[in-house]
């Protein structure tokens, strides 16, 4: 399983046709940093299939925590098995923000 950061990930060199397909499926290529990022999410399933084909491995994309903005993968999430959606949206709440352990300490301070 490869977890790709949707804001920028590297790919091995691909043929011209594959590259065009990737761009058509919604990827954006930044030649300066040699990074791909996802621009359009409408074809995410096909995009993932193509990437899995290129990388020869299962692919998932990082989630962004809507609270602390960190990027993280789903493998650490205890709900991943019952998660109703396997790809989009790429926004979630990370474990740390969901159940902040410090809350009790803060409450004690009051």
């Amino acid at each position, binding site marked *: 399983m490869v977890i790709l950061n949707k804001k920028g990930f590297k790919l091995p060199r691909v043929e011209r046709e594959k590259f065009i397909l990737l761009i058509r499926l919604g990827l954006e290529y930044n030649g300066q940093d040699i990074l791909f990022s996802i621009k359009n999410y409408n074809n995410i399933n096909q995009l993932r299939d193509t990437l899995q084909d290129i990388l020869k491995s299962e692919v998932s994309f990082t989630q962004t925590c809507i*609270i602390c903005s960190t990027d993280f993968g789903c493998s650490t999430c205890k709900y991943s098995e019952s998660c109703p959606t396997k790809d989009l*949206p790429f926004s979630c709440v990370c474990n740390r923000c969901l159940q902040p352990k410090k809350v009790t300490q803060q409450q004690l301070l009051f």
Partner: protein
Amino acid sequence: MKNDLWVEKYRPTTIKDVIGNEEAKTLFVEWLENKRPTKKAVLLYGPPGVGKTTLVNAAANEYKFRIIEMNASDARSEKAVNRIAVPATSFVGLDKFSSEVKGNMLFMDEVDGIAGNEDRGGVSAIIKIVENTRTPVIMAANDPDLEKLRPLKKVCLLIRFQQARIPLIIMALKKICEQEHIKYEFEALEKIALNSRGDVRSAINDLQGLSEEGKTLTVQDTLALSLRNKDISMYDTLKGYFATKSIMEVSNLLNSSNVEYDDLLMAIGDNMPRRYTDPGELAEAYDFLSQADVFRGRVGTENWHLLKYFYNNLAQAAAVNPESYKSFEFISPPIRVITLFWTKSKRTLLDSICVKIGVQCHVSKYEAKMIFVPYLKLMLQQKKKTNTLIEWLKLTPEEVTFLTGLKMF
């Protein structure tokens, strides 16, 4: 305040607060701000309760649009569309009454509900409107793959909505609990979120249904959650069972269902009064269920060939009066399970009291219940000289309070 629906009360008013679907939100905002000028209309699609309508309302609020809404309840014939939608899309802004409002925004919810005959010409009328519109046109649908929507999809920017992830739902529930001053066990919110399967609306409704002012929401409270999404195969079997019109159909359905048949019998029994309200029909249906249960008893662990009579009787119970069928919400989990759960502490107390009576008066628990408890309750209610009696029976204060307040069976 208790009467307010929390889904309404806590409906986000800004785009930022709409949970999940960040990508869809970005796309929608870009379209609204004319950064994607290729299409004049958008079609938001995805399962119910994931925030399509909410996003549209929030966007209208933020960008100062007035929403002109048409939904499934409005007939969407060509005539109706033209009457409401044409005026709404023909003017840009210039509102005489309020400088606050930028202009109109046409929102057609549940476009997949446009029926073939009833809404004749509706789809082509909508397409014409999209072609000529000077204001944003927004449509929403659950299932975009319908054949009749194909022409619509060509003129729309498609934006896909997904179910909300569980942590996001938990966060939303947490926020509501804090605002409503409801104490909760984290696991209870987890249960509600998991049960909702990504439907934020139903999660919030469940939360409101389960919480009580001044009480902590516990995991145990969530046991009573509706079946809705929990057990799809049971739900589907029940739905099919009550909706089918012929005994043959029911038999086929029951044969193909993989629900355990004791559970099924119980669930059907629980829901039968919701299906038949006429006492005659209800009695007849229950009589078939009773017969089915008798065959179930005879099947035991070896006479499996009798199972067909069990199913046959179940099928007959469903077909008592096919004409009176209307869809209804199912009860779950089984009433017996809920009852025994809620009354467990009562039963345990009564049991311990009866054991104590049994020790002193040489009777079984059952006899203590039948012959002693009713009188003992009355004696203890007199409160005169009861101390020695309580002491003799070795009853705890808790048991005495329970006994004096006990409803006679």
